[in-house]
């Protein structure tokens, strides 16, 4: 049987795959990993299926709200020339809302949620590494979306376009609160996006089945890994940009106002450093989905796996060198235009590698023409068309003609609908049976595919032509004599195909959920691990985690639990006593050998409470309740501390050691050593990107102002900078000393290190605060003062966080929580302190030294 399945791929879905063992304690484990029942239980839910499904459904809800209703009214308005169904103001609000919702509240949560839902089963692990962080990510995303949408209730809908260019988005031209809803509502959602990205990175790198080395990972996992890193690198500059925009709108700090030394281009840079990678952040998960669906539907291994991995990584990097191609008409130096044009064209190479790899796979395979595959083909056709217009607009002279015309609108909808929406539909048809146990209806599916495929082309193809004829985007109407009427009418008629297509898709979902054909474990004869589990999978996913020897375990392996004797014993032990708690396996990143077993955190109300605190910060700023910001920040800190309160370990130290002697892998029932270390590493990476973006902002403003600091401002005091920096660095050294002490089981030394470090850093911070208060320039007079105060305050906040962490660690240390074998929190706090000191040196050094040096 195994011979038959190797080589050209699996059978037609009839051949039974290798069985996944559910022996021993299946029900018990299922109950152990389930979320508690009732409303209170739902609010505390952290389980990956629940969190993932919620994210996907909420994203889909926002799609129906912002993706379809707005576009229907806009197309109605544009169907004929010189109509006035909607006013220009309402039209502005609609295109702003359409862009903002689809870019921030739809595609990203759907893909992040889907990854959280799917990855553990697909990778052969039981959970994501930080279930509570996943729940937090969902709540922040939901509240952010609702905060943004609540603008509608107050008739304060943002109207400055989805990229909110300054000065249009500043107080002078947008005096009411509409833009604050945009900045703050989406800001909350951005926090959620970053939290989910951290979860996804660590889930992929550290929590896979034993034996699933990096090059045995499904391409979907590679795609999500690259995507999650991109989210971290792209969303952080956006958060910085949003922060500066809100500081200018709410506190009159002039970052973007040229009259006071600011630069309106700084906003465009910060926005597009996020904005262009964002397109690929949406596209890469879609390519991951296609790379899973397509090989199964053509019953053939993907052609060029390594080429695909290289293409995913290449797109991840190259996408960060394209942002200024949105700014070809703002007057950048010629050579800079050339840099960005070249990078924009080179990225077509890895994208092309992917396309040819899929085509080669289809060429070699035997196609099953079902709905999922039809959507894949639709994706290939529409996306290639959008990709080619993308290379066209990468050419500077062409772009300067097509810029801000309907040609660009046609291009981006071909890319996003073809490249992202169609793979989503394919993915839903493909994985629906896994998570519901029922197949989606084929006839409804095909009908909805053809309606959507024809509808999308009828709607968006004429936009290329009308764009080349000169129709600008974002106009609410146009005169008849321009001759644009017929193209716009065709575009609008296309919507009459898209809307029933979407309707049929929703109907199909609802119908199939109740009446669909029973799917069984593996209806497609697929190759990846999730198809070996029951449909829907158990709460804990895997009773006995699988052992992987191939990229296509279900095609190549006869038994999913066969392996080296020791590993085999270990995975079976995971189903039995003494591990009857939420035990999950951590593996080595490269070699995929088990490195530890740790307890995954359980249901908790604190993620929801913390998310409420976060949204409280943003909502208070919206209402200009400045005390509310401080109060909400306190809520966040208190809730985060409660969230991380250690539970009593379910095993004694002797039991842990006993297990370790038998199986050769340490058990950390009190909490992992490896996973939080990665979490802290990514948190430090986030902080570094945050400060990197602020520092780039500083130097950008410095370049824009030939006189720096401005006339009449005295250079800052080097003595203050030197003393406070010395104290903060000494504090970090002292905390590190505490870590060294606890490695020798010296709790007293740990306490001394933590408290002395906190005291030193607090004095250093206080000196800086006193200096800031006594400066002879304010934060509102000139961009110099604005960025000076912002960067200094950011450094103070990081040191404040470090002090809070040290104090909470000291409390637990005094209670005797830490030992030489139990010091993970101390280890991480010490790392954060060192990072905080480095960031302090860089930012305070820049602020106080650069006026002397330049």
């Amino acid at each position: 049987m195994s011979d038959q399945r190797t080589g050209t791929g699996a059978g037609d879905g009839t051949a039974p795959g290798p069985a996944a063992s559910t022996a021993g304690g299946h029900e018990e484990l299922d109950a152990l990993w389930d979320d508690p029942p009732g409303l209170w239980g739902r609010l505390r839910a952290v389980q990956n299926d629940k969190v993932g499904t919620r994210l996907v459904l909420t994203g889909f809800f926002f799609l129906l709200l912002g993706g379809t209703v707005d576009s229907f009214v806009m197309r109605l308005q544009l169907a004929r020339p010189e109509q006035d169904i909607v006013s220009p103001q309402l039209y502005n609000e609609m295109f702003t809302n359409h862009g903002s919702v689809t870019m921030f509240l739809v595609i990203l949560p759907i893909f992040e949620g889907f990854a959280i839902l799917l990855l553990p089963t697909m990778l052969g692990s039981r959970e994501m590494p930080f279930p509570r962080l996943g729940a937090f990510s969902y709540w922040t995303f939901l509240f952010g979306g609702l905060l943004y949408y609540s603008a509608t209730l107050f008739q304060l809908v943002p109207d400055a376009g989805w990229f909110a260019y300054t000065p249009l988005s500043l107080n002078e031209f947008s005096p009411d609160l509409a833009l604050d809803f945009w900045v703050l509502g989406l800001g909350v959602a951005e926090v959620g996006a970053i939290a989910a990205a951290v979860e996804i990175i660590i889930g992929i790198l550290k929590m896979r089945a034993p034996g699933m080395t990096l090059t045995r990972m499904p391409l979907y996992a590679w795609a999500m890994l690259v995507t999650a890193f991109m989210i971290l690198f792209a969303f952080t500059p956006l958060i910085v940009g949003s922060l500066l925009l809100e500081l200018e709108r709410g506190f009159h700090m002039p970052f973007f106002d040229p009259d006071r030394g600011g630069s309106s281009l700084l906003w465009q840079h910060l926005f597009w450093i996020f904005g262009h990678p964002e397109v690929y952040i949406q596209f890469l998960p879609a390519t991951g989905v296609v790379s899973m669906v397509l090989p199964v539907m053509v019953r053939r291994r993907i052609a060029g796996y390594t080429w695909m991995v290289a293409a995913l990584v290449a797109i991840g990097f190259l996408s960060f060198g394209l942002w200024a191609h949105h700014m070809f008409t703002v007057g950048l130096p010629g050579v800079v235009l050339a840099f960005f044009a070249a990078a924009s064209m080179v990225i077509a190479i890895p994208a092309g590698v992917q396309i040819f790899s899929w085509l080669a796979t289809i060429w070699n395979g035997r196609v099953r023409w079902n709905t999922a595959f039809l959507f894949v083909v639709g994706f290939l056709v529409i996306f290639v068309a959008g990709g080619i217009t993308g290379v066209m607009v990468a050419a500077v002279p062409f772009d300067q003609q097509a810029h801000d015309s309907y040609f660009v609108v046609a291009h981006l909808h071909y890319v996003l609908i073809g490249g992202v929406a169609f793979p989503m539909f394919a993915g839903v048809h493909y994985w629906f049976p896994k998570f519901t146990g029922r197949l989606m209806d084929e006839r409804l599916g095909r009908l909805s595919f053809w309606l959507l495929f024809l509808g999308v082309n009828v709607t968006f193809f004429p936009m290329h032509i009308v764009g080349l004829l000169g129709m600008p985007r974002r106009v609410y109407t146009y005169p008849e004599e321009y001759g644009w009427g017929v193209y716009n009418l065709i575009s609008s008629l296309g919507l009459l195909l898209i809307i029933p297509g979407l309707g049929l898709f929703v109907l199909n979902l609802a119908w199939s959920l109740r009446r669909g054909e029973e799917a069984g474990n593996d209806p497609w004869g697929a190759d990846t691990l999730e198809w070996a589990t029951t449909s829907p999978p158990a709460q804990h996913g895997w009773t006995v985690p699988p052992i992987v020897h191939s990229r296509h375990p279900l095609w190549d392996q006869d038994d999913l639990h066969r392996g080296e004797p020791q590993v085999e014993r270990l995975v079976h032990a995971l189903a039995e006593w003494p591990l009857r708690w939420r035990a999950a396996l951590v593996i080595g990143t490269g070699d995929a050998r088990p490195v530890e077993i740790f307890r995954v955190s359980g249901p908790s109300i604190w993620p929801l409470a913390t998310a409420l605190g976060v949204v409280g910060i943003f909502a208070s700023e919206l209402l200009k309740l400045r005390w509310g910001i401080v109060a909400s920040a306190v809520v966040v800190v208190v809730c985060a501390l409660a969230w991380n309160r250690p539970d009593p370990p379910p095993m004694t130290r002797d039991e842990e050691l006993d297990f370790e002697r038998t199986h050769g892998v340490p058990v950390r029932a009190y909490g992992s050593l490896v996973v939080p270390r990665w979490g802290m590493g990514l948190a430090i990476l986030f902080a570094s990107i945050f400060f990197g973006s602020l520092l780039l902002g500083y130097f950008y403003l410095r370049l824009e102002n030939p006189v720096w600091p401005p006339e009449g401002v005295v250079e800052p005091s080097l003595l203050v900078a030197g003393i406070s920096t010395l104290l903060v660095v000494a504090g970090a050294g002292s905390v590190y000393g505490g870590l060294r002490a606890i490695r020798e089981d010296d709790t007293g030394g740990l306490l001394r290190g933590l408290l002395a470090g906190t005291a030193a850093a607090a004095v250093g911070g206080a000196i800086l605060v006193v200096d800031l208060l006594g400066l002879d320039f304010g934060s509102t007079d000139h961009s110099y003062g604005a960025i000076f105060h912002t960067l200094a305050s950011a450094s103070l906040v990081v040191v404040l966080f470090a002090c809070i962490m040290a104090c909470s660690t000291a409390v637990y240390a005094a209670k005797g929580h830490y030992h030489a074998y139990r010091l993970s929190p101390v280890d991480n706090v010490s790392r954060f302190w060192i990072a905080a000191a480095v960031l302090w040196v860089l930012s305070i050094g820049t602020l106080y030294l650069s006026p002397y040096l330049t």
Partner: protein
Amino acid sequence: MSATDPASPRIAEEPPDNPSTIRLWVLLLAGPVLWIGHFMVVYLFAEAACAARESDDIPFFGTGAIVTIVVASTLVAAGLTALATVAAWRGTRGREADATAMGWAGVLLGALSIVAILAVGLPALAIDPC
């Protein structure tokens, strides 16, 4: 139970990962990291040099100097990327299938990065920089 007990392994001292993992990542990512590094260097330099030319009466960098610096750094970056690609190529000769596949992906990424570095930097020869 203390850390000095021979039965108790020194958990805190354990390296989090197999050291060869780091080598795998370096082989894979060296090319694109050099690309983004080069890109940011030439972009920030050109932006700063051109801004300085606008505001200063006596420009610090002449047009020729900007082109020379951009092209020189492009050649240096392309050369370094070529070295990294060769190292990844050597990595493909390892016996482990995993290292081979990652090394091969590294070779592909290195080759693409060389093309991308040259494509980004060399047009400076034909364009008025500011």
